[in-house]
């Protein structure tokens, strides 16, 4: 919360004041043309949704998965994907705007594994990036006032791609016997490694995320080793994937 300026004059601390006098608390903000969470009065939060990524590991893709709700692996992978997309500001928000202050595009990215042979994250990140590059947003007309709730209608104008601020590459390493790094582990190896580390880098060599779901503890040196190995590979891949978009 960024209410320091607005709360400066109070004797009570802001949290207590908020609990006792919620209406007055918010009113003090609004008098200053700002809201408690720092947004202007007419700004929507909907812009938080850039993309909604979900990974699915259906029973179809491997005998190790059963039908039903997603397992822990699936859940943590989806959360990590969402994290690297939103915190990395991959997608240029302006390109997702349909009608300022009224409607934005939501990109549902459903990543379904069709054949699970290990290291699903690297493949998922690559597929997601390629698919985002492939997105064409149609030109739509949004209804005014009374029709604002109705679905927008696609116009005849040409569709547009979205602008991606950066390109991500994930590199996964299995840690065998707590020290040996195996790049791109197969599903057989995954069952044997003590843990695995995924490093997501962008095309400018910036680390955008490190994913280490459970397993044995890894030293800082080992993580550094993974990052170094990932850097080595990323430049080549960025080139290959960059070509896809054009």
């Amino acid at each position, binding site marked *: 919360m960024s209410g320091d300026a607005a709360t400066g004059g109070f004797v009570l601390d802001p949290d207590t004041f908020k609990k006792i006098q919620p209406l007055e608390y918010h009113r003090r903000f609004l008098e200053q043309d700002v809201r408690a969470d720092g947004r202007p009065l007419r700004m929507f939060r909907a812009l938080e949704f850039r993309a909604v990524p979900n990974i*699915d590991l259906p029973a179809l893709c491997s005998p190790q998965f059963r039908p039903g709700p997603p397992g822990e692996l699936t859940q943590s992978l989806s959360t990590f994907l969402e994290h690297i997309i939103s915190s990395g500001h991959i997608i240029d928000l302006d390109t997702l705007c349909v009608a300022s202050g009224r409607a934005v595009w939501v990109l549902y990215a459903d990543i379904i594994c069709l054949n699970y042979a290990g290291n699903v994250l690297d493949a998922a990140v690559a597929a997601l990036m390629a698919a985002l590059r492939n997105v064409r947003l149609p030109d739509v007309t949004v209804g005014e006032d009374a029709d604002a709730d109705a679905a927008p209608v696609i116009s005849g104008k040409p569709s547009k791609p979205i602008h991606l601020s950066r390109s991500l590459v994930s590199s996964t390493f299995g840690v065998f016997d707590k020290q040996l790094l195996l790049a791109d582990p197969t599903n057989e190896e995954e069952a044997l490694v003590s843990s695995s580390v995924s490093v997501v880098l962008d095309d400018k060599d910036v680390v955008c995320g490190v994913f280490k779901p459970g397993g044995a503890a890894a030293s800082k040196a080992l993580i550094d080793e993974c990052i170094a190995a990932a850097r080595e590979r990323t430049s080549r891949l960025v080139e290959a994937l960059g070509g896809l978009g054009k």
Partner: protein
Amino acid sequence: MDRKRIAGPEKSVVPLPAPAPPVNPQTARPDKRRRDQIRSLYTKTGSVTQANGSAYVEAGNIKVLCAVYGPRQSSSKNSSSNTGTLQCDFKYAPFSGGKRRGYAKDDQEKEFSLVLEQALTPAVRLEQYPKSTIQAFVLVLENDGSLASLAAAISCAALALANAGIEMNDLVTACAAGYFGSAVCLDPTLDEEAVQSGAVLLSYMPVLNEVTHLIQTGEIAPAQCVQAVELCIGACSQIHTVTQEALLAE
């Protein structure tokens, strides 16, 4: 709300397509096919390496993948049976159609799963697999006609079962047809389906000349219904030559 998946905003809508001239398959089909012409097929087996058997079928825009696991030991509660069981699971990918689908199976997917089971069971020699379960998972990657997709799913699942080495009496194929006024058109697309007055889905064992499943909706004169059945049987035989080739091409 599903807390195990990343949720989108509370409300989001699919934009409506631009107004287009109405489809009338009675006079001309949008993709210029003849009434008794099915979409061209592409089939491939074995692409899901983790499965005991798998198949991929493409019919025009329709894309269907099926993986077969088993025979595996049945769960204890029904293990006393002297014959095996075939379990089928039909699912549309979230991105397969106009509106995004949820991950949980809806009523239509449950019904289609049942139809798959009914269409394939007569062909599978389940008496050879006592106390075992054979599972076929079908995923529709792209849907262009819900009955046509189901038909492709049936042919695809039969191919995947054969690819898995499951003993079968015949290689089941399936075909859909729609009623448009007095006309019967085979293999209707999504746009055509929107204007049809009824539909037929028929599953068939071409070598044994036996129908394994049939379902029909819509009011129609008996003669036209029989015509649709006969057209579908003819198309099933055509599909059979393609799926048979795919099996032997391995």
